[in-house]
């Protein structure tokens, strides 16, 4: 038995799924506080059921809100950058200093660490009233010496300052993203820890002792204990829940665009063959790009309850929420009311809906119908633009090899799936936008909670071997291992090692080896000819356990 809870801007939804059947569903208005919302949903379920749950997963906007509301800790950054882009041009949301030593593209270090200069510069940085410092060097996934040495000096000279090193947060390439990830992780760490300790205690006190997870941006589960280490992975948890809900509520192998229409938001995405498209670009926090694999989705700040307002004399949908308890009374003009005016659905009084547009109609000397039509077409335009945006996000993913480009020529799907609380009422609005069919799945209004309940663990193993350095690095946790026999270490050996590490991780998550589903998404051997005929190699392998639906009984 699995429980999924989704806390959105308007509603907190909960669902219990037992043997692939929904047995209970709860929809509660979201209170501003995530803990309260989660607990109110849990308390609404029969307690004999929740205590028997095997797994509880929450999708939440906690991290997004933490940064939007500036509740994070004040921190700074010490950067070791070397040649490249001008540091001042990077979008850095925190105060920073630059230290002269650096590592190059091969991982070789240049310049030296001077403790005196570092002490002086850190003192300057501390004038910003910061509690922690992120030490980030370029190419620190290749060579972390500079970060370690710098951190050591800071630790000795300034005890009490919290420290984080870039390579421990993101071992892959992308310096600006490594800086952002290290800074944001450090800034969020304390808050996240406090928050989830509190939540866990409250949940345990209700007799629930099953594993607790949060939903990640790639639609996978992250055990609560790991969230302290990698809090950023859980931003965009909400849209990921919609996407997973869409996968769960449709037949296996479906390709379609999907729109999750909530009260005050819309999440839009694309799914090819039951897999939501992934993008590694585009996720930003405080305007800094993050190293996250996330579903390529667009979130709009408008939904079914968005009020129709005038902007420069044109009716549009406002991002402001309205707090009308009885939306179908149509005391204010909303998107849902506009759809009612145009008879795109038949819920609530038509007369009331028309009357709600009376003021606007008088102001613009147009009919109520015309205003409603303009509001609806504004909504349609926003959705169409978003679909294009996702498509180009996906196409912007770099492709370095021939077969990857073949992949990109796949057709963009024409069918549309409509989910969310507003899905039933507003699906007709979306019909003119697509050439294929428009489907509203049963239980689509609870898609997010269903997605959270049925998600499975995702993880990746990115291995980089350098036979010249006789070393293998696993980028995810910066794990280093020596290569015993570099001469015979080739692609097959590297592959075997990566799969070994992958199965070990799977075992740690308690994944049944039969359902490990590790997929090699990248595997390349680069020969480097340096010393006569003795060929050295760089080998890169990436294994991914993709998101998917966790069924109790295989279908």
């Amino acid at each position: 038995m699995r429980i999924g809870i989704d806390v959105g801007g308007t509603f907190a939804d909960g669902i219990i799924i037992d043997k692939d059947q929904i047995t209970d569903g709860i929809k509660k208005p979201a209170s501003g506080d995530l803990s309260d919302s989660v607990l109110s949903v849990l308390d609404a379920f029969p307690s004999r059921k929740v205590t028997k749950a095997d797994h509880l997963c929450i999708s939440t906007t906690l991290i997004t809100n933490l940064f939007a509301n500036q509740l994070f800790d004040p921190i700074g950054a010490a950067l070791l950058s070397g040649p490249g882009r001008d540091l001042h041009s990077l979008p850095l949301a925190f105060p920073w200093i630059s230290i002269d030593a650096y590592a190059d593209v091969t991982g070789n270090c240049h310049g030296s660490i001077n403790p005196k200069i570092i002490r002086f510069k850190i003192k300057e940085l501390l004038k910003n009233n910061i509690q922690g410092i992120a030490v980030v060097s370029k190419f620190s996934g290749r060579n972390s010496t500079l970060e370690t040495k710098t951190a050591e000096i800071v630790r000795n000279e300034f005890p009490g300052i919290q420290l984080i090193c870039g390579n421990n947060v993101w071992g892959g390439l992308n310096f600006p993203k490594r800086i952002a990830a290290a800074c944001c992780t450090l800034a969020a760490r304390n808050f996240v820890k406090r928050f989830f300790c509190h939540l866990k205690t409250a949940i345990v006190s209700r007799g629930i002792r099953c594993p607790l997870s949060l939903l990640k941006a790639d639609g996978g589960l992250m055990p609560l204990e790991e969230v302290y280490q990698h809090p950023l992975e859980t931003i965009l948890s909400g849209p990921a829940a919609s996407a997973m809900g869409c996968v769960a509520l449709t037949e296996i192998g479906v390709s379609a665009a999907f729109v999750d229409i909530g009260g005050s938001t819309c999440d839009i995405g694309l799914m090819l063959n039951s897999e939501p498209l992934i993008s590694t670009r585009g996720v930003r926090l405080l305007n800094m790009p993050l190293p996250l694999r996330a579903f390529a989705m667009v979130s709009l700040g408008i939904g079914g309850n968005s009020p129709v307002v005038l902007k420069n004399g044109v009716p549009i949908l406002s991002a402001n929420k309205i707090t009308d308890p009885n939306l179908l009374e149509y005391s204010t003009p909303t998107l849902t009311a506009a759809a009612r005016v145009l008879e795109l659905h038949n819920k609530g009084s038509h007369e009331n809906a028309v009357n709600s547009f009376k003021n606007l109609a008088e102001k613009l000397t147009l009919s109520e119908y015309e205003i409603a039509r303009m509001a609806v077409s504004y909504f349609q335009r926003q959705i169409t633009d978003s679909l294009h945006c996702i498509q180009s996000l996906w196409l912007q993913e770099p492709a370095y090899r021939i077969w990857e480009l073949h992949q990109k020529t796949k057709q963009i799907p024409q069918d549309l799936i409509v989910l969310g609380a507003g899905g039933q009422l507003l699906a007709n609005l979306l019909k003119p936008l697509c050439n294929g069919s428009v489907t509203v799945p049963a239980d689509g209004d609870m898609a997010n909670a269903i997605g959270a309940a049925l998600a499975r663990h995702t993880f990746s193993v990115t291995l980089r071997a350098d036979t010249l350095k006789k070393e293998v690095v696993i980028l995810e946790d910066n794990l280093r291992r020596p290569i015993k026999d570099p001469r015979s270490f080739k692609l097959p050996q590297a592959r075997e090692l990566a799969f070994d590490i992958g199965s070990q991780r799977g075992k740690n998550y308690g994944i049944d080896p039969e359902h490990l589903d590790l997929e090699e998404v990248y595997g390349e051997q680069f020969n480097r000819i340096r010393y006569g005929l003795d060929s050295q190699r760089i080998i890169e392998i990436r294994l991914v356990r993709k998101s998917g639906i966790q069924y109790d009984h295989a279908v």
Partner: protein
Amino acid sequence: MDKLPTGFVFFPAFDWSLGIDHPEREERLLYTRDLLEEEGVFDISEIENILPEYAADEMISGPHICLPVLDRLITSAHRYAIGGIKTLADARMQNKIRNGFAVIRPPGHHAFRLTYGNRGFCNVNNMAILVHYLRTHYHIRKIAVIDTDVHHGDGTQNIFWHDPDTLFISTHQDGRTQYPGTGFLAEFGGPCAFGANINIPLLPGCGDKAMKHVIENTILPILDDFKPEMILNSAGQDCHFSDPLGSLRITAQGYVEITRLINPDLIVLEGGYSAETALPYLHLAILSTLAGINTADIHEPGFENVCIEEPEESIEAAKHIAEQALSAYQQREVFYKEAFRDTGKTCSRNLRIYYDTDGIVDFEHERFYRCDSCNGTLLIDSESHFGTGETIRTRVSIASYHRCSKCLDNAMKHFNTSLKKSSPFHFVVFQDLHENKVIKHQII
């Protein structure tokens, strides 16, 4: 955003190489990918990542005659490299980008019009394909190609030898000390395009100063006079001081200066083999210059305070050849009369083209028919000897861009009369450059 972004095609063809230990192997752009990823250039709005598409036969068979068959010459890696050039050109012409850089493998500037195999790491000429595409698809008439690779762009020179609307300027290491051994000032263009082909050979040791002098004092004034609608740059980063194949001494900041001065609309990558230490930083320098990003902090790792010496005599020689090239260009009409004094309506020349990679020798006899009202027609008889003992004889009849109807008829006539059963040729080809039309006939 008021400023258009710089288009960037990055296609390293990580599943293609000329052999595991060849300089032209996958590894060459691996470090470039790593540096560009590390610098985060794919995340900034100044740069737009453009994906290549799969190029159809017409893209390639326009400027080329591929023998014996296209698919023996190119793989899907080439098709994507060429498709990358196409998508970049499209983006530029549709005003989606302000300029663009195609970092693609394999390179192309040593591939001639008739191409039988791989020479100088090239099978087909990416730059020539780009020019041909811009001209036939977007009707751009006057195009300048500046080739800054350390090797003479002999293939590009060959393809546009008779085209007065393509100004080809190549700076490279002097052919007496460098592959392919050509590229002297005397190679000045065909009778109809005399002065539209300019070679500026540089002695070993030339670096940033020499290059800057050549660009400012020769290339820019010629460009000013020629007034191209578009400037393209065949950029080879093998002029770098650390390049294992070249002996010039350009630095990363030197590449910034070259790119800034030439200010090309589109750049196509050619060579560059200092794969690990320099190439990634040079590509970053060029891309940043195009995109208008601050380049002050871009330099070769470990060379913060190192000054790269340029021998005085190399600089002097560069200044001398630069001056000669400019004056030859300015007096091209005087020289023209001298060069073609004894020729009548028909000019001919013989070429011997060696394919170092594939061991092919191609002997070409070229006859060019002048015309008073257009750019004339060209007849090429080629006899190509393969290392395997195989010989291919080909006749090609070409009608130029903007040909008159009389010349088109003549070119067609040459083709038709060569089709006889008794013909000594294995292949007879008719090519109408203007209409991008090719008829290839195999005589069995």
